[in-house]
């Protein structure tokens, strides 16, 4: 067995990363999980958070993802992320603005809730956006 696992990070626009790594830690919806070579088959949802890529025994790269899915097999770990930014490239001001916008959107959705739009898609979307923005801010703390 090789001592690396093939890590792929894919966004809808393009394949962001495809390289062998020692270990990746993925923020799963039910808790972070580390993927080492020989991991059993797993499909999991990913919550907004940071993916840590380990090389030579230490964290070599940190990438923020705003949720998605992960598919793990013994030799491969594929993360499908709708949005992915390296933690170092996150702009604090922008993240804060995003949080504000999301909060405003949620307030607006709550206001409209009583009138029409009974299914609450707007609210759910705004709540998801708030979580993503909060996770983004937490990543750069």
């Amino acid at each position, binding site marked *: 067995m090789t001592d690396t696992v093939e890590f792929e990070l894919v*966004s809808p626009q393009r394949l962001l990363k495809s390289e062998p790594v020692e270990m990746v830690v993925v923020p799963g919806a*039910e808790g972070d999980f580390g993927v080492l070579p020989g991991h059993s*088959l*797993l*499909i*999991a*949802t990913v919550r907004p958070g940071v993916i840590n890529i380990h090389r030579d025994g230490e964290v070599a790269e940190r990438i923020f993802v705003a949720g998605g899915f992960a*598919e793990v097999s013994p030799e491969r770990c*594929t993360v499908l992320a709708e949005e992915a930014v390296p933690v170092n490239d996150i702009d604090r001001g922008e993240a804060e603005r995003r949080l504000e916008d999301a909060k405003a959107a949620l307030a607006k959705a709550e206001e409209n809730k009583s009138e029409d739009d009974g299914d609450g*898609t707007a609210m759910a979307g705004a709540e998801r956006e708030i979580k993503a923005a909060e996770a983004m801010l937490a990543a750069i703390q």
Partner: protein
Amino acid sequence: MANLKDLKVRINSVKSTQKITSAMKMVAAAKLRRAQDGAEAARPFAQRMERMVASVGESVAGTEGAPAMLAGTGEDKTHLIVACTADRGLCGGFNGSVIREVRTLALALKRDGKTVKILCVGRKGRDGLKRDFANDIIETIEGIGRRGVEYGESVEIAEKISTMFDDDGFDVCSIVFNHFQSAMTQIPTTQQLIPFAATEPENGEDGEQKPIETGPQPIFIFEPDEQDILAELLPRNIGIQVFQALLESAASEHGARMTSMENATRNAGEMIDKLTLTYNRTRQAAITTELVEIVSGAEAL
């Protein structure tokens, strides 16, 4: 001399038309390059997403609680057709072929006594379909991909489709778009979105089909359970499928426009040559007549 002047005016007008068509061709070529790159870069995500849906889908297939989006509503009465066209014309048979495909599909469905609903993406699709299906077009979305197709836009369309599905608006949904083959050829393609239908891998070497042939299915761990994953995965998958279709459609549009504008430029060139020839001949004839007049006038003296 009026004739000569008319010719000159015509030559000039054809020349300016040629300038416009050749500029449009260049713009289309530049946009085509970008759209094509975008469509190719987006392929890995769609492939992996589909593989994932297929793996999760197989493990819940046949069980009681399989979501309707995967298994269908069990009925086949109302069909939703999403027609992807451009907002603008001047791109050869691009819009026409999608419209024709939708029309054939809709008529066939109607003959079987089914209800058809049409969602138009792009203004030209609505223009072409409203004469025959004015009552079936439920909505038109315009302005997609004006500055390149964005994922957010397709998610919005997908959300519309999902909401409509949840409200029992339709049983089966398909999307019709131009599949980009090359700048010269675009193939109108119909793809089923709901219920989920795995498309055949294009070149057969994709690992997707293998497990079925080699016996027992690999057993996946699901976290959280299959149902929860599917509930998240399926709407996203529709978003991705729509995104992919829009990208293909955008690339096709620019390809078709480039080809047709190239033809137009060539035709304009031919026309200019012909007109110039006539112009020169007429001018020559006029000069000859004038000379003959002068000479015979001098002789008469």
